[in-house]
């Protein structure tokens, strides 16, 4: 359970009482809705130093009003499903999914819902979360970059209106992550819903792509990125020290000017030690190479006696690495490897950047290669892995090597991506996965590898990837088991609305 949930839940009792007073009719279903608005009120007592008693009642009434007004506008959709693969628990038979305003509110039997709810009859269908494509360049023009571009976003290349997602929908995909093309560090990805209202299609940036497919070429780029990031951090530290010295000096001078004060303040004391606020806009400190505009302000700034330290700007091309090294967290990094040796080369580079994560990997040429050499290593670090479905034959042998199953057995989490960006590959994706299951991959893991696991990898698991309370109703309706070859996708829903229906 995510921690944000826990926080919300603690506020439930008081909100529930308020809601009960105001709307006795459908309170049960409205509870979660209230919970959704609660984080806004939740943050105020934490950040404010003002007494709690003062703000809490205000927030409550505001939430009540909001809840009361939103109740009438809520759009209820009820899906009566023959079978539901939630990906969060066991498979359910003959259940109802209640969707409110595009989000799943309840899953269960004999649920109560208001009479105006739209009921979708899927009693002969299987409902599962929409598939997620974790690595695509669908219909995007080739725009390969070389070198270090951690600041580039694939979102700038994607014009959703120009892309035809019909094959995605027909194959049951509801989300896709576009990756930046190129080698080295070509940039961050962009995650979208493949259909739905235009303003709610963006889902995030996915991951920063780092290619380690040809170590002779790519190691240098990653090494440079790490050393550059360290230089940037050093630069900020240096500027901070300089600023602190200047502050101390200014204080001393102020005291000298002040009459009848002989004592000296210790250097670096006083406000110099305070933690600096990092996001102030006024330029107040000399940087190593300040822009032309800043120099003019310098005289004025020193005259004004700056109160806060403003760090010099960090090179955006390495910002992602700076965040990882400085804060130990940041944009997830996906390393793309071509052979088992690349993992050793990656580890060789990461020895200089231990703060960086090293466990999200894409194994290209995945089912054919020497990955068996490093399966154990990958399992030990519980790696998160994107691979194409397929079973390889070892060179010079007839042994069929089931890499996905071996990875899962070793302790990895796998996401399965269609073999390429052709409509046929999308269409056959479920079949390919079925082949893996037949050869020994646990069925449960295989289904998750198309839904929940890619959602986790792309850090969108709080919104999509499984059928759970609070998640977006991005669902696929099939006329049978998703892994059976006969099965067809009948309907696709995003945010509680049908966006695609089979014409057959």
């Amino acid at each position, binding site marked *: 359970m995510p921690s944000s949930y826990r926080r919300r839940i603690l506020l439930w009792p008081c909100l529930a009482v308020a809601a009960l007073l105001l709307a006795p009719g459908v309170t049960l279903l409205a509870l979660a809705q209230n919970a959704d608005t609660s984080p806004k009120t939740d943050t105020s007592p934490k950040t404010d130093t003002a007494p709690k008693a003062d703000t809490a009642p205000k927030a409550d009434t505001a939430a009540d009003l909001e809840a009361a007004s939103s109740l009438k506008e809520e759009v209820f959709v009820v899906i009566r499903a023959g079978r539901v693969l939630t990906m969060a628990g066991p498979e359910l038979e003959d259940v109802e999914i209640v969707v409110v305003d595009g989000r799943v509110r309840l899953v269960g039997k004999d649920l109560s819902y208001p009479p105006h709810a739209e009921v979708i009859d899927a009693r002969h269908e299987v409902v599962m979360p929409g598939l997620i494509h974790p690595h695509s360049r669908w219909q995007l023009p080739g725009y390969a970059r070389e070198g270090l571009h951690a600041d580039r976003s694939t979102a700038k290349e994607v014009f959703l209106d120009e892309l035809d997602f019909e094959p995605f929908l027909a194959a049951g995909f509801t989300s896709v992550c576009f990756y930046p093309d190129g080698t080295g560090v070509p940039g961050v990805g962009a995650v979208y819903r493949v259909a739905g209202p235009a303003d709610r299609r963006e889902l995030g940036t996915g991951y920063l792509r780092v290619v380690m497919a040809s170590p*002779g070429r790519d190691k240098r780029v990653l090494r440079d990125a790490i050393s550059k990031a360290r230089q940037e951090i050093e630069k900020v530290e240096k500027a901070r020290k300089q600023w602190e010295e200047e502050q101390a000096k200014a204080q001393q001078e102020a005291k000298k000017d002040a009459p009848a004060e002989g004592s000296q303040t210790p250097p670096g004391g006083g406000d110099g030690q305070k933690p600096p606020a990092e996001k102030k806009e006024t330029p107040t400190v000399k940087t190593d190479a300040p822009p032309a505009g800043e120099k003019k302000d310098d005289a004025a700034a020193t005259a004004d006696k700056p109160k806060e330290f403003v760090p010099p700007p960090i090179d955006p091309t390495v910002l992602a690495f700076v965040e990882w090294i400085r804060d130990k967290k940041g944009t997830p990094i996906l390393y793309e490897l071509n052979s088992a040796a690349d993992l050793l080369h990656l580890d060789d580079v990461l020895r200089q950047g231990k703060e960086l994560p090293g466990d999200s990997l894409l194994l290209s040429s995945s089912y054919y290669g020497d990955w068996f050499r490093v399966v154990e290593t990958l399992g030990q670090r519980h790696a998160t892995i994107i691979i194409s479905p397929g079973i390889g034959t070892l060179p010079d042998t007839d042994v069929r090597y089931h890499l996905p199953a071996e990875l899962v057995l070793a302790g990895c989490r796998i996401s399965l991506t269609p073999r390429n960006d052709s409509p046929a590959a999308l269409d056959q994706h479920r079949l390919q996965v079925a082949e893996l299951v037949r050869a020994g991959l646990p069925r449960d893991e295989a289904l998750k590898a198309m839904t929940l696991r890619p959602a986790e990898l792309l850090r969108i698991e709080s919104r999509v990837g499984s059928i759970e309370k609070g998640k977006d109703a991005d669902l696929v309706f099939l006329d049978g088991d998703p892994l059976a070859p006969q099965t067809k996708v009948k309907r696709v829903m995003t945010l509680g609305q049908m966006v695609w229906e089979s014409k057959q």
Partner: protein
Amino acid sequence: MSGEYRPCNWPTAVCLAMILLLAIQELTLGQTQPPRPSRRRDRSAQTPPAESPAPVAKDVEADRKEDRYLAITGATVHTITGPTLEAPTTVLCKNGKVLAIGHNLVIPDQSQKLDATGFHVYPGLVAIQSEGIVGNEPPEDHTDPFQLSMTLALAGGITTAVTGNTAAKLTFGTLEDHVLKRNLFYALNYSRQSAAERQKLRATLDRVQQYLRDLDTYDSAKSQDPSAKEPDKSWIKGEFDVALKLLRHEMTAVATAHTADQLRDLAELAQSYDFQLVVRGAHEGWIVAPELARAGVRAAVTPRTRADRDEEVNRPNGSSIENARILYERGVPLAIVPLSAQVSLGGIAGRDLMHLPMEAAFAVRGGLPQDAAVRAITIDAARILGVEHRVGSIEEGKDADFVITDGDLLHYMTLVRWTIVNGRVAYDKQEEKLLDHIRPDGRRDAPPPADYWPRSLGEPVSGTTGAPAVPR
């Protein structure tokens, strides 16, 4: 899913869970803190409490880092630079270096043990010319340590190979301690085809030689005459810098030369300027062996080379099977290289790098003593690369690079059983599924296997009939 129906129960459930979690955390924290390594407590008791804790922490860290031991037992050990130790001799390695060699050694419990009873331990072979075994320069960025050609080279007993101007170890499965030495050689261009090139090289060497003389004069003069001027060295850049390194013996020159004329020219140059030189090829070295020896030239020869005698030339010429012997007897240090510096996957087996010991055996056929032939692919080859302090012989403190064979290294029936690089088993014949079907127990008199191709992984290796074993 029952929780989904009655969300009112959630708050209490979560509160309970959190209390439970906190309690568990407290319990586990309380448990994990006391049993710190007892060694540390003892040490802090001995040291005065005022001392800063930093060195203690460092010590603990060093102690925690586990030592890697490997013990090879029961073997006959050919140390090359020392005596051959009869079986059962033990070689004990620690963290990739040889720790001890001898009988009845105490073997640490945690050490990896290799029972090599009946096998022979030689130092890993050094291939001073190779292609495609390790990656391009810099090898630590290019090598694929899972490559088949690396495995095959290891199966040929090689543990040190060369790429470009860098020597690297065949560290199968790891990139640790991969590079051995960079900037091995300076390639000399001194052929009769280009008189200008020759003149230029000599002029460069002359100028640097004069500088060194001036420097000597200055060194002896400055004690008596404080006003003595140090010779100008601002011009020593580029080619002059290389020449200076050559003349100071900080670098070794290398040149490819086959005929007696070419070899004589190079020998004369090396002798007159006094620098270290390695000649590659040296087909007609047997003709000019005394000159080469006098100039201190070292040679990398291929005993199997054949260059027919030119009948129109009225002097000795052409290749000789006795080339290696004559060079050796005249005192020219030798390294032996095969005809092809690659591991061949395409069918010239027997002439490629996998058969380096066979190439050395050819030299024996031409009269080279057996031990000199082995030295020419181990310690003498290492000397030519300038890495003899690390590899090439089995000595305490040197790298734990061995080839463990089921017989005499130069015997044509001998197969490599294990190859050890940096104290790790880099090749194991019975694990690698390449040659495991041939004499699996290492016995020479075993009947030949029912070998056929293609053979499938997992099939029985004994050659007996039966259904192929189903892998996994």
